């Protein structure tokens, strides 16, 4: 009966019904509301005027001077740039640090692998805020990083907070938070790798690096792409790291959105920033799917 249900096209839609309903109600409708709000006028007391206006998007690039003329204001573009830069850099560092870890784990005997993978996921077991506060202590003045840096003279007395509240602190927070999301998919794809290919490569005059570059990495690409997406997308929208480790002056897009809905009470602008953020996420997902389909096709051919 249930098997018969999924066999006709209509039956299949019916079977998917609950899932479609959930996606529709909890994802598409809120998304629609968000886009709609982004095209409305703000109401200074919170909420919106139900009136079409692109002003939120204009505000992202321009501001009004005293004569009410629009002048270009790169402030928000800086925030966008900082978000993209930090998320990109965090992704790169996660890959450079995570790939060797995944490789190391996959070369262990099977019973050790499970333990190591479990260890990689441990940070997820602790509350995100608690982990961020731990970093405040580690990175802050007289912390374990600050003290030796001062002692070595790398950090002068003018840096009153150590490296806390700098871009570096945000970066460290992002890398720390999302590193397991890079390691796990890479590990999954390396685990399926036929290691005899590594032998074949060394037989054909490849040293370890050449084998890695020409055999292992190409075959692990699906996992690498997945890791890159899993790190880049949430890192782009992250606001906890920036808020707690970056201080009040170093906003990321996520903070900007949060700010508009809380203190600034500019819902349309917050929604517009969220839409812009979403566009970058969708673009990177599209790039991911494209790349993955290309390599997937090659691998399955």
């Amino acid at each position: 009966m249930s098997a018969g249900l999924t066999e006709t096209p209509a039956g299949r839609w019916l079977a998917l019904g609950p899932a479609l309903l959930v996606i529709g109600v909890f994802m598409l409708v809120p998304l629609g509301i968000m886009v709609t709000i982004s095209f409305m006028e703000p109401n200074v007391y919170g909420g919106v005027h139900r009136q079409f206006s692109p002003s939120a998007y204009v505000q992202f690039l321009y501001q009004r001077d005293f004569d009410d003329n629009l002048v270009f204001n790169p402030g928000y573009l800086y925030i966008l740039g900082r978000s993209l830069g930090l998320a990109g850099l965090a992704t790169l560092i996660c890959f450079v640090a995570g790939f060797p870890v995944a490789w190391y784990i996959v070369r262990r005997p099977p019973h050790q692998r499970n333990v190591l993978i479990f260890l990689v996921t441990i940070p997820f077991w602790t509350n995100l805020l608690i982990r961020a506060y731990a970093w405040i202590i580690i990175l802050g003045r007289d912390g374990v990083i600050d003290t030796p840096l001062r002692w070595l003279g790398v950090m002068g007395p003018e840096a009153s907070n150590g490296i806390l509240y700098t871009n570096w602190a945000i970066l460290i927070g992002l890398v720390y938070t999302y590193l397991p999301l890079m390691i796990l998919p890479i590990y999954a794809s390396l685990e399926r790798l036929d290691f005899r290919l590594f032998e074949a490569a060394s037989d054909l005059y490849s040293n370890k690096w050449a084998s890695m570059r020409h055999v292992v990495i190409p075959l692990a690409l699906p996992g690498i792409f997945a890791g890159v997406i899993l790190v880049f997308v949430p890192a782009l929208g992250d606001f906890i790291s920036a808020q707690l480790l970056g201080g009040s002056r170093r906003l990321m897009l996520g903070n900007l959105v949060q700010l508009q809905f809380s203190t600034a009470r500019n819902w349309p602008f917050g929604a517009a920033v969220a839409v812009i953020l979403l566009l970058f996420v969708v673009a990177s997902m599209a790039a991911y799917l494209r790349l993955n389909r290309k390599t997937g096709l090659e691998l399955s051919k």
Partner: protein
Amino acid sequence: MLDRHDEQGHDNAPPAISFRDVVKIYGAGAAAFTALHGADLDIRDNEFFTLLGPSGSGKTTLLRLLAGFEVLTSGTIHLFGAEIRDLPPERRPVNTVFQHYALFPHLSVAENVAFGLKRLRRPAAEIRSRVAEMLALVHMEHLADRQPGQLSGGQQQRVALARALAPEPKVLLLDEPLSALDLKLRQAMREELQRLQRETGITFVFVTHDQDEALSMSDRIAVLSEGRIQQIGTPDDLYNRPYNRFVADFIGDTNLLEARVLRRSGDEVNLRLSGGVEVTAAAAPGIGEGAQVTVSVRPENVVLTGAEAGSVRARLVGKTFLGASSLLTLALDDASRVTVRRDNRMGHPEDPETGAEVGIVFAPGSLRVLLP
């Protein structure tokens, strides 16, 4: 290449490969397993050399030591006179055709073949022409752009061969490359491999557990059993002059008879078979008078005669028709069994009936005393 069968020429040249007292122990402590117990082996340049032995005898281990994938426990391996213990696989002028092919799934056929040449940083033009040449050699030029996953087993095998030959190694290692193929393809590939070996002049070290394959393709064969080399020789040597019981039994069919040595004269000994008959047999040095020995004689070297004419009396107890020949099973007086092969040529006298009294003679020089 012309002088490959010229023994004189080979004796002067240093061997391409030489194993001296090579021991390989896998694992350690309680789990330690000795896969090779001191192997000594010389392989000549331009030779088609085969390692033959049952499963688990250490053939792959020998090959992997040569390729550099395993570290030898003790002993030495020389490649063209140079010790290679510390050379990693990528620095050895040796390429392998793996039993499981191990083609790179993300690369096309042509890219697979080009892989070794690219790592050697050969010029692009040279790589292109060499790849085309190799693909033509294995008749795969029309499939150059396919991915390995789109090829049949035989085609993958040929790509693996082309990939290993492309960098012009001095030695090609082949680990049971034909075992995954069906009978027809396997026979075609045997001839192709022999042709390739002759055309390229590369030393082939070929691993198989199939004695037909070994006998039909090889210049020389080493027979392995339980991590020990049992005998090294030409196919003719192994078949007609087996050294010990394992080789006589493993290669072809044979009759094993118990006997006692009466006298020794030069390379030959006089024996009394357990049935009481006296015969002459070839024997290795070290077999002295009075020794209890096993003698081997091939079924085709046992000739059926009339009951009175033979040197040994026997009774026919069974017949197996094989087409070109028949195998007759005879019981001797002391109840030991001897198998006789008879050609089924037209006009040949009919086989006697089961139960008939017959006589047999052993073809001159066909009896060999085996070492235990």
